[in-house]
């Protein structure tokens, strides 16, 4: 009986066709999008090669620690600068691919896009550090914090210099200055590790005494450079 009434009523009283529906929908204010939502959205557009490189670094740390390969930390310190270079290169990906002008006119401007990408890659690097440092430290009876500092310092040096270089006229012209800087830092680390045992001892001593302070100083310097890059990204594009 109830169903019959429903049918009868809906047959008798049809809902009117919506008037000006399109105009109404167009006039609706766009919803707010939070930063975490923006990050999740941009995660989907991070290139697979970047994820693969991050996974490779974690794999090296895990396998090296489990098999107690003594050079594990050295290899990681040599590869982390490339992780920094990739992050810096991402700040110019829109410009390189000719997407910058388009991204500057969307609701979330190019600046927000670059900020989101840098945050994602920063989180990825932080996760690499969080996974590898305790594993290596446990495998080789070293302090977790000092191991993290050892891996982090070349990363921060590369990132800060690369950010500076990519903003310079020469860096803008060449487009891949970050990779050259990362290669330079890695070669220096390799050379010191293999040919300058005295310097290694001095460096490790300095890390023991001043490592945390140096890392914090480099973090602050890198943060300033990142801020300058993000602020200038639309002007440069």
């Amino acid at each position: 009986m109830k169903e019959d009434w429903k049918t009868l009523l809906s047959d008798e009283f049809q809902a009117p066709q919506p008037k000006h529906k399109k105009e109404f929908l167009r006039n609706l204010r766009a919803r707010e999008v939070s930063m975490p939502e923006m990050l999740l959205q941009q995660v989907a557009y991070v290139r697979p090669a970047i994820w693969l490189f991050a996974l490779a670094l974690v794999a090296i740390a895990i396998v090296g620690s489990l098999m107690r390969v003594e050079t594990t930390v050295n290899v990681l310190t040599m590869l982390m600068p490339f992780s920094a270079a990739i992050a810096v290169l991402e700040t110019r990906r829109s410009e390189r691919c000719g997407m910058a002008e388009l991204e500057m006119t969307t609701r979330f401007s190019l600046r927000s896009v670059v900020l989101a990408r840098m945050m994602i890659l920063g989180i990825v690097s932080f996760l690499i550090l969080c996974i590898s440092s305790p594993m290596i430290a446990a495998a080789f009876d070293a302090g977790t914090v000092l191991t993290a500092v050892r891996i982090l310092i070349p990363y921060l040096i590369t990132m800060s210099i690369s950010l500076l270089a990519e903003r310079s006229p020469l860096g803008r012209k060449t487009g891949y200055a970050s990779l050259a800087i990362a290669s330079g830092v890695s070669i220096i680390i390799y050379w010191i590790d293999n040919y300058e045992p005295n310097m290694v001892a001095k460096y490790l001593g300095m890390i023991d005494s001043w490592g945390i302070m140096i890392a914090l100083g480099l973090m602050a310097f890198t943060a300033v450079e990142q801020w300058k890059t993000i602020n200038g990204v639309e002007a440069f594009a």
Partner: protein
Amino acid sequence: MKLTVNGITKQYKNKTAVDQISFQLTEGVTGLLGANGAGKTTLMRMASGILTPTSGSVDADGIPVDTEEYRALLGYLPQDFGYYPEFTAREFVQYVAALKGIEKKKAKKKTEEILELVGLSDVAGKRIRTYSGGMKQRVGIAQALVNDPKILILDEPTAGLDPKERVRFRNLIAEIGKDTIVLFSTHIVSDVEHIASNLLMMREGKLIYEGAWSEQKGDLEKFYMEEFE
């Protein structure tokens, strides 16, 4: 809605690319005509918020050009645009939709609608790098339309389109112009003659003509040729 361009100037070291230009636009199609180097692209980039004017202002119903609120109203097709090499047309339009703050489900639906509208549905899954120039231009138009913009700025949109595509594009713009402010630049007079209800003409950074063009005023192409000779 009213788009107000108020005395904007863009000065580069020794050159004034755009010199004290003012106009107001309401819903309808406005053609911006001018020879290469007249300042059309600079003007459009300022109206899109990409370039900051040296002086003057741009707003839509009082919403300044440099705000998120303005960009939410905007659809823009640059003269030259690129794409991430791995993108298909579908991914490209969805990416722009995401940056325009459209939620995923709605963006997917809207992307399919727009790609259908520009005639790219059957190749939407193919990488853009395999497309012809005209097809790439249609992808560009699709991304500009994905958020149902109230202000649509198109810089040389007919470049690279073949005659058939050009006619189709004109019809599309004429339809959109019924309830949208459309400003499109070109140096092809026939593009403007067919669909623009309003005309702006630029020469050496200055606005030399503003208003509707009627037959009583004579042949537009002749006038244009005389002005730019």
